[in-house]
């Protein structure tokens, strides 16, 4: 956590709190806008990747890291090459931007953990690139293709987190807090939500890449729905006055409902109607790409919620001292 001292709800920060807060890092609007831009471009990259898979164009460029033998020549953009090569070009752009972000963060941000988060983002995007290459070199093995999907969404979450951490609210404002005395705690619920979403992501990716049947992904959907709904309702009802918690919770619930509807649509067009399709059809492509894209947004929203809960909703533990009554103590 930043050196900002936890302040009680609604109280004006003291001189000491303000002094400690100024030791974190100054707000850098350009750095923040650049981080937001990367997050947006990464989302576009996720959509481009989903288009590759949904159009069955994954191996239309048969070599890597070259494209038809060249590192720089543009191939003839017809058929599946349009999707695969454009995905590669956007990926290279994101990688280039991430290098800039990592260097910029290291130099400009005083928070040690942020410097290393920038490095982690760079490491993740490099890993993602290598995984993408391996999917081509090994003809789309389900495990590697699914890892590529999972790491891609992980990078998107990291990019969104960096955008959050460089934002004005996070850097400049004293966080509003409310102690969590319920069990399970809200932070536990948000972390479990992230876990279940990753499980759902892997199950979906394994199905999309022909490594698994569809039913585990569908069977897991109600578990996702119940857990995320529980988390969102807890956040919205118990901490409605903390905007930083309420907004991502509302967003998460809205995206969950959308994702469930898109999942039904994707199943209908791809599994039910499209099982004998001789080629990817427009309805199949649109529904599956939308399902992947909204899934990425849902995961990112859940991660942001978890971060905000960790910051704004500290957990109360019962501390018992011999000879006295137990009292609530806020976790450090």
């Amino acid at each position, binding site marked *: 956590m930043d050196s900002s001292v936890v302040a009680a709800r609604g109280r004006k920060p003291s001189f000491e709190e303000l002094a400690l807060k100024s030791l974190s890092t100054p707000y850098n609007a350009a750095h923040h806008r650049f981080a937001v831009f990367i997050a947006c471009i990464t989302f576009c990259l996720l959509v481009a990747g989903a288009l590759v898979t949904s*159009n*069955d*164009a*994954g*191996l*239309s*460029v*048969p*070599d890597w890291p070259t494209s*038809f033998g060249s590192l720089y020549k543009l191939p*003839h953009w*017809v*058929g*599946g*090459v*349009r999707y*695969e090569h454009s995905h590669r070009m956007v990926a290279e752009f994101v990688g280039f931007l991430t290098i800039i972000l990592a260097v910029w963060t290291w130099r400009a941000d005083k928070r040690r953990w942020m410097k290393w988060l920038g490095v982690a983002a760079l490491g993740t995007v490099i890993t993602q690139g290598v995984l993408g290459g391996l999917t081509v070199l090994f*003809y789309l*093995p*389900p495990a590697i293709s699914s890892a590529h999907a999972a790491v891609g969404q992980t990078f998107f979450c990291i990019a969104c987190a960096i955008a959050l951490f460089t934002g004005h609210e996070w850097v400049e404002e004293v966080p509003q807090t409310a102690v969590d005395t319920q069990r*399970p705690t809200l932070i*536990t619920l948000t972390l*479990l939500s992230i*876990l*279940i979403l990753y*499980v759902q992501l892997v*199950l979906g990716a*394994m199905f999309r890449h*022909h*490594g*698994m*049947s569809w*039913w*585990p992904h569908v*069977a*897991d959907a109600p*578990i996702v729905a119940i857990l995320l709904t529980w988390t969102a309702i807890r956040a919205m009802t118990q901490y409605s006055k903390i905007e930083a918690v309420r907004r991502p919770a509302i967003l998460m619930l809205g995206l969950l409902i959308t994702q469930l509807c898109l999942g039904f649509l994707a199943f209908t067009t791809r599994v039910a109607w499209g099982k*004998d399709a*001789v*080629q*990817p059809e427009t309805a199949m492509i649109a529904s599956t790409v939308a399902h992947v894209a909204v899934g990425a947004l849902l995961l990112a929203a859940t991660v942001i919620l978890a971060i905000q809960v960790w910051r704004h909703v500290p957990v109360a533990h019962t501390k018992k001292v011999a000879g006295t009554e137990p009292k609530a103590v806020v976790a450090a």
Partner: protein
Amino acid sequence: MRLKLFVPLFVLLLSFCVFTACNQQKSDEQSHPAAPSGPPAAPIDPVTVASASGTVHFDGVAPATVPIDMSNDPACKGDNKAETLVVKDGKLANVFVYVKDGLGNRVFAAAANAMTIDQTGCRYQPHVAGLLVGQKLEIKNDDPTEHNVHAIGVQNTQWNESQMPKAVPIEKSFDHPEIMLPIKCNQHPWMKMYVNVVANPFYAVTGPDGKFEINGLPPGDYTIAFVQEKLGEQDQKITLGAKDKKTLDISFKEQ
């Protein structure tokens, strides 16, 4: 349920799902069918060879022809009807017919001539083909556009190569028997054909009239397999005497 139990229980459940639902691909390291054992089979006497022929029918109403959208490549101007199920006057085309069992431990050398596949009109010609283990497969591109040729073998190694228009033919061969090995183009996702790699030269592919003919079979008891890409496989047993010419008709119906 205490939350501390939830995570490990869930991980167990997930592992069970993965274990039961995972569709593992067979690797080349997995065992391939062993060569039949027993005393060596008698050489084939050309004087006594028999033949099996017949027609493959389709039971029921012929499915509507599925159109193909080739608009993603302006250079594609071929016949835009799907070949998944080709039925004409109740006869089923593109059924691969082969001798599955009955030849004993005879070993047949790969044919000297190559099996040729051509890419024209952004379609593979033929749609279904047979070739012997080790026989050369030659793939040509007579289209005005680039293709990539991706063989998705399970018993055989996968490969994927791009091919420019009028380029030198791609030459490959397959080391293991495999039925309905898909070959597809990822640049034009409707393009798909099937290669059937067999260990003996007694096979045929039905034409538009549904007919097939397999000649040169030594007398004996055989299992003849009929394989269609969507409707699956049916086997028929037949006994052939010396110089027999037997008819073997079979019907498929939509599942």
